[in-house]
């Protein structure tokens, strides 16, 4: 049976939520794995959950990026296993060099928590297999350092390689200043590696997987997890 590891760093706070959704909504086995673990053998995928690893000290995600478990996470990424970073997990993946770019402080200089519309730009990653390009999803964001930045010159290359996965848009899929909650370049909300097995995104799919919790009675977050599960079962 497939098994997913959800890494617990000191200060992670979406760890239980992510495990809850995987176990009880997606009905797959997910275990919490303490950050000191140096062995992820037996797991078919790894998720770095949201939160404030090390209290965001020094810079969001950077201390966790150097913790023991990350050597294993890198190995899994290299071996083609699905690796998903949500919010602080995205920040950790960027700091660990597994994804390009940087996550800067929001342009408002304030923490922002709200539901946003996300357009699927590319379904290249293993987490977006079940999505169609152009689909608009609803998920909440909650972050202080979510402003994705990358040099314009590199951006073209990532578009060409279809690594830009999600963008903040309006409900019709249009990018505008109003629909961009944090000042990310081009409204980018999620990006994957060239192989498509490592994805980082600022929105929280685990908070958007049960209709009861959605102001729109939607469960779009499930599509991220079910894409991953489908990929794992075919692997």
């Amino acid at each position: 049976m497939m098994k997913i590891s959800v890494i617990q760093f000191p200060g992670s706070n979406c760890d239980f939520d992510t495990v809850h959704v995987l176990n009880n909504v997606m009905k797959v086995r997910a275990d919490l794995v303490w950050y000191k673990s140096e062995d992820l053998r037996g797991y078919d995928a790894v998720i770095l959950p949201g939160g404030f690893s090390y209290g965001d000290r020094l810079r969001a995600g950077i201390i966790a990026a150097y913790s023991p478990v990350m050597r294993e996470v890198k190995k899994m990424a290299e071996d083609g296993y699905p690796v998903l970073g949500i919010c602080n997990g995205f920040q950790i993946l960027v700091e660990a060099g597994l994804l390009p770019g940087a996550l800067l402080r929001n342009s408002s200089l304030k923490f922002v928590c709200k539901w946003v519309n996300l357009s699927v730009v590319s379904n290249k990653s293993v987490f977006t297999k079940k999505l169609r390009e152009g689909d608009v999803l609803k998920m909440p964001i909650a972050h202080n350092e979510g402003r994705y930045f990358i040099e314009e010159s590199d951006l073209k290359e990532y578009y060409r390689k279809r690594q830009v996965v999600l963008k903040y848009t309006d409900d019709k899929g249009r990018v505008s200043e109003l629909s961009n909650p944090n000042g990310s370049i081009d409204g980018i909300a999620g990006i994957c590696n060239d192989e498509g097995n490592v994805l980082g995104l600022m929105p929280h799919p685990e908070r958007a997987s049960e209709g009861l919790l959605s102001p729109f009675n939607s469960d779009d977050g499930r599509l991220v997890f079910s894409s991953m599960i489908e990929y794992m079962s075919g692997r």
Partner: protein
Amino acid sequence: MVVQNFIFVELTEEEIKEARRMLGREPNTLELAMIDAEWSEHCSYKSSKSILKLLPTKGPRVVIGPGYDAGAIDVGDGYVVTLHIESHNHPSAIDPYGGAATGIGGVLRDILCMGTRPIALLDSLRFGNIEESAHSRWLFRHVVSGISDYGNCVGVPTIAGEVEFDDCFERNCLVDVVCLGLSKINDLVLAEAKHPGDSAILVGGSTGRDGIHGVTFASRVLTEKSDKERSAVQIPDPFMKKLIIEATLEAIATGHVRGLKDLGGGGITCGLSEMADKGGCGIDLELSKVHLREKDLDPVEIMISESQERMVFIVEKGHERDVCEVFEKYELPYSIIGRVTDGGNLIVRIKGVDLANLPVKIVANAPIILRKAIEPDYIKRLKTVGDPGIPKDLSPVLLKMLSCPSIASKGWVYEQYDHEVGIRTVVKPGKGDASVLRLPNGSFLAIKVDGNSKHCYIDPYNGAAGCLAEACRNLVSVGAEPLAFVDHLQFGDPGNPEVFWTFSEAVRGLSDFSKALGLPCIGGKVSFYNEDIVQKMAIKPSPAIAAIGRIERQEWITTMNFKHEGDYIVIVGETKSEMGGSEYYEYIHGVVGGNAPKVNSIKEKAAMDSVKEAIRRGIVKSVHDLSKGGMAVALAEMCMSGGMGASIDYSKVPAENLRVDEILFSETYGRFLLEVDNAHVNELLELMRKRVSFGVIGKIEEGSLDFSFGDKRLLSISIEDLKDAWTNSISRCMGEV
């Protein structure tokens, strides 16, 4: 280390004399400092205890009532929720960021030390005039940011709250924070040390010089020197707190934690003496074991330091290792600092030498002070204030009301808070009158905090009861049955008989109303000395009431946004000429005074019961209670959140000979607005008949909010204009739009 000869003591001459008499000897310097901390108003409730006795505290669902760090309510299927409210007013007035953040830290520990996981935070905030005062904007911005940074990092969602603005809070802002906890009933832990031989283990942050004399600082008025007392404000560390939360819950799961207390006001002194007193034991404390931030701390400083992020565990003898392994996993500093004894004394030693030896009964039970209460002159004076004239055009008045910071959207505040983490938040901030969380047993919990200092100033008895009534109406509006409340009572100097009168009136009001509703008070807090002698201003009496309710079924959860065009709008409850303390009088006309709304517990209960029944029968689609800004504001809010307009005939509002502005803006209690469709309107009216006053006042329509009297049109405002006034008002005040 030596005990310093010179310390600051806030105790009065009589209190020192009383301590001497109770001890039968002269207390030494350390002992005096310990008594000083524990006998502070903040820790001892010495002025308020005799009045607080009036409040009802029993009920079928009450598992733990007042007297512990939090109250606990049975929510069924073996689960309990714990509830507590705290303020951090003085610290926030001089250091808004650190003061507010450590306020969150404190209330989280209160919930945690009951053995329950903190699952939600709420905040109830009061500031001066942010439209005019840069100082108030500074306080507001940094208080919100302190709450945001701390609550978000620690992973507990901030799901509801309220903000009020009034000149009286210009320097002395009020920062109240509410925390809700959840656990299995069998996992509850009490702050008691009752098994001699057990170990006292101090866990978490090291003890340092921050927060020295915090409780005594909080137990006097603010002065021009207060800004120099920032050392009395503790240093927040939400990351450490997050580790403490997880480690504490894991430690409890070992089954060997027999007592637990957070160290807040009064530090180690209060923590240990209160646990020993409750458990009927003593504690031997070895001070050299306490892990310190600075080596040269003297015993007085160690005993009263309020350094943050510390907990004391009472651990079953012989099982210290099991519990300490959990602390080691989280790399939390800890030290075994003492042992529970069968004597009744708190003995403080350094390397075996006695430094203090005090009966815990004496330390933990300050002599009660009976304060004088005299009705202030201003109360009668305010009642005779004349009515202002009716403005010619009420359209701009309604728009101005919507932009009034106390009424305008609080999106600027709650979007800075993570209100989703924990994935329990079903009704989110701004969507309903109260926020709703799902519970693990399939039922739902509604929670809200309310206050109204303008009403309480003019009429403390009815105003305080009115705050509780509003909190309950908010719960009922989302489909809940109110279960219990906690109160935070904030006043000026209790030594002033006029201030003390307002305090005892407020408690009497709360007590009478909660008894009438059969609603127990399961805890609370009193904060006196909210005065600023620079401006010679005491705050208006400001109780903040947090109430919780239970919703058994998902289909009962109700929100306030209008759902369908063509549906009827029904008002429940009679509107009266009770304009005193209304936002309309104060914000539009600058008039303070008149008759403030009065509670009528029979009518209030009848209105709540009818609305509850209508929701349970499934015949109403949206519900909103009437509060600040009255009917016109409530209708505008329903329109804006639903993106629909409404056509209202205000001649249909149950009221006797009222002026048009009174009908629109009166803040009379006991009223609701309901949306009902054509198929259910008769059933609803039948249900209401003979129980409450009501009127079918209009219909939901496209585009604009219109008011008419019969055929005569009074005003019409488009939804876009309403939204523009309401949505960005606070951002505009803060210079961000």
